[in-house]
């Protein structure tokens, strides 16, 4: 049962004849951090809402700790949800927002205050507790939403793009915090995101969705190193696609070796160079090999030989054996 803490089986959902989710299944272990990753409109939010019980699926089942939860209304599931818009009640203070759900439970005022304090502690909001949502920064609002969802000690924490409204620096900091809170409370978490970097860095497992189906469900490095489909290969990390001997293979930019003096390898011409700080990204045109787009190769920006490269420079390229074929 601990291995099948949350399980969705063959979830299907259409809106007005348009199939949004098609036979979606995945399983989360207790305490796992799962990401639902995919491009806009692929059905992530819909799946999350079905798990939460806010939306009914057309067919399929949601199991929680082995029990069929499909007919259980959202109000009885005790799943914590953080919405993309946070949906903080603007007329209630931070404390009142966090305590909102506690009020209806018979736990006594003292216990409720204790929980609120603990949540303020965990999310670092003690200084803000009497403020109203509009007085808070985006990141702080996000934390309040998180604290409010966690206060009821939910069976699962569901997050719908919790960081998408924040700027890059805050986003990076907060995703670390979310992961830290997850580890500390050991709470099974499902997070929706369309940012593959975010998914790779925080999750134990990622379900990559495309057009209403889960194309692959696996750990971040499984997805990165052994993507099952071309879509995954292109969506998770950067990937070059080459046509070699009639097959299509994928190679990561950092797996390709280039040299300005060696005689071995394939001839290539530098088409463009991007300075990316710690590395240089080269865009190459290969001789005799067809690529979907210019071959992307990342090289160290400290390498003097590479620093000398200009557009139209000639270069040798070695494609590693580890290339993935499709």
């Amino acid at each position, binding site marked *: 049962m601990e291995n099948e803490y949350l399980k969705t089986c063959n979830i299907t959902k259409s809106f007005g004849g348009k199939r949004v989710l098609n036979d979606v299944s995945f399983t989360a272990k207790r305490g796992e951090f799962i990401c639902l990753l995919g491009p806009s409109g692929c059905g992530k939010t819909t799946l999350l809402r079905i798990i*939460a*019980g*806010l939306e009914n699926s057309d067919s399929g089942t949601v199991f929680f700790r082995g029990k069929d939860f499909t007919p259980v*209304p*959202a*109000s*009885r*599931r*005790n*799943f*914590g*949800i953080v*919405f993309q*818009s946070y*949906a903080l*009640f*603007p*007329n*209630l203070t931070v404390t009142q927002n966090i305590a*909102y*759900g506690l*009020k*209806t*439970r018979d736990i006594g005022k003292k216990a409720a205050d204790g929980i609120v304090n603990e949540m303020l502690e965990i999310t670092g909001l003690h200084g803000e507790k009497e403020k*109203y*949502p*509009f007085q808070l920064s985006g990141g702080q609002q996000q934390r309040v939403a998180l604290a*409010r*969802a966690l206060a*009821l000690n939910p069976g699962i924490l569901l997050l719908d793009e919790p960081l998408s409204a924040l700027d890059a620096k805050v986003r990076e900091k907060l995703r670390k915090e979310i992961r830290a809170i997850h580890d500390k409370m050991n709470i099974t978490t499902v997070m929706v995101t369309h940012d593959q970097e975010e998914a790779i860095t925080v999750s134990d497992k990622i379900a990559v969705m495309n057009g209403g189906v889960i194309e692959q469900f696996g750990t971040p490095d499984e997805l990165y190193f052994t993507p099952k489909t071309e879509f995954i290969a292109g969506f998770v990390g950067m990937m070059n696609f080459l046509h070699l001997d009639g097959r299509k293979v994928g190679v990561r930019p950092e797996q390709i070796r280039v040299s300005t003096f060696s005689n071995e390898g394939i001839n290539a011409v530098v088409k463009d160079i991007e300075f990316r700080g710690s590395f240089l990204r080269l865009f190459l045109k290969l001789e005799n090999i067809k690529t979907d787009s210019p071959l992307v190769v990342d090289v160290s920006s400290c390498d003097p030989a590479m620093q000398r490269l200009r557009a139209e420079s000639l270069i040798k390229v070695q494609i590693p054996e580890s290339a993935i074929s499709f």
Partner: protein
Amino acid sequence: MKAKTVTSVLIGLIIVYFLLFFFLPLVSIGRLAFYNTDGVFIGFKNFAEYFTSPNMISSFKNSFAVSGTVTVVTFLLAFFYAFSISRIHMRGKYVLRYISMISLFTPTMLHGIALVYLFGRQGLVSNLFVSWFNAKMHTNHVFPFEIYGAAGIIISEVIYTFPHAYLILSVSFAMSDQRLYEAAETMGAGKLRKFFTVTLPSVKYGAISAITTIFILSFTDMGAPKIVGGQYNVMAVDIYKQVIGQQNFSMGATVAVLLLVPALIAFFIDRLIQQRQGATFSSKSVPYVIKRSLFSELLAAAYCWGIALLILFVIGTSVFVSFMKFFPYDMTLTLKHYMFKYVAGDFSSYLNSLKVALGTAAVGTAVAFAAAYTAEKTKAKDVFRKVPYALAITTLAVPGLVIGLAYILFFNSPSNPFSFIYGTLTILVLANIIHFIAVPVMSITSSLKKQDREYDNVAESMGVPPVKTLFRVTLPLSLNAVMETFFYFFVNSMVTISAVIFLYGQDTKLATIAIVSMDDAGDTAAAAAMASLILFTNMGVKIIYDIAAGMIRKKTARWQTIQR
């Protein structure tokens, strides 16, 4: 499951409410217009009779002529008034806004009475001034202007419809986007060109709404033509005469249908066009920046103050007269007209009006909120939850007179189990709620739409019952709209005559009805006093409302970023 049942019951109740108090009464009018007294279908026989009667045809033409003229005049006046106030730098805009809205607080009879006092046979201008002028100049002029008739009706209706048009137009002007003006300017557009290519298109939808509103209001108003119409008949008064005067209910119903049809057409044209509007004003829009120009400022100020003073002058005349012993011959200050002694109306009708207005405001606000809430916030099936909203909005097209007539026909029938409400204050409250509910439902809906839909989902996921979220979050966030609604119902119930004139009983006479009977009986000063009393009441309520709203705003300012 439980919340779902509650929702379904609530929606069911609202639908039953509208069926019972709106739809079925209307059907009974249709029945009367198309069937004879034995219940046999007679098709358009009544209408044929209507259109062969020269009197009726002339009323029909008069109604269109008057409301057509009123529509053009009010629209132009209100358009430039709204334009000046929102687009030109001026002092005292706040005062101008207030003055323009005073006539919302008065029954239309008050304007008619004022006009009679000013231009009638014994009028101040028409009689005293002209004879004074003749004596001074040794001339023999006759006042060239007959106020009883089309002119009087038109002036009264213009004053009556002006604030409605102004309010709609000023909202449109407020929603214009400065970026469009800047774009036009960089492309070298001059003032006039900007007006025609940017300003006009951006208020297009508001203008259409204003025009249909003015038309419907003036087409269906009975108060002013009753007082100042003289021999000039219009359809709204015909209904009254047919039903109350001649007890000819089928002809009354026929006229009612004829009154309803143009109103319905105007209503649907407006709906259709508004639907195309979509989102022309986004959150990215930049508010219009007023540019200074001395010439246009002077022109605008003269124009606005001219209109405002005219409104004040007309309304002020009635108020002034009500305090004079015997205007214009004995100008001693007195309160005797407010005693309502030895006249065809008494003070209890004022108290009845207060009761009805408070009842309408309280119950109406609850019904309007419930209709808006179910449409906007519940999870029932779309078709099902939109029905109450659609029904509520449709009431906008149905004139008060038609509602009133429908109610007598429906509730006075002995077979109706609700016939016991006939002749009570309750039926007046019910008629008023249906009469005025459309605007409140729209404004509460738009305030609910501004709230995050996820509020309810968050609460649900926390296992908090919807009722608690309604009281803890939804209602506090819509407090402004709720208070406005209460005020709107109150003020309109105080000034209305059309629906209630058919429905009052021995002990449930209202102030507006008393005005008409006093005026009929020649107790014009008392009628003016009663009309002024209504005005004072509404102004008092407005002051209380403003204070309360200010206090609430201060209290809620702590959590409100944007104040509306």
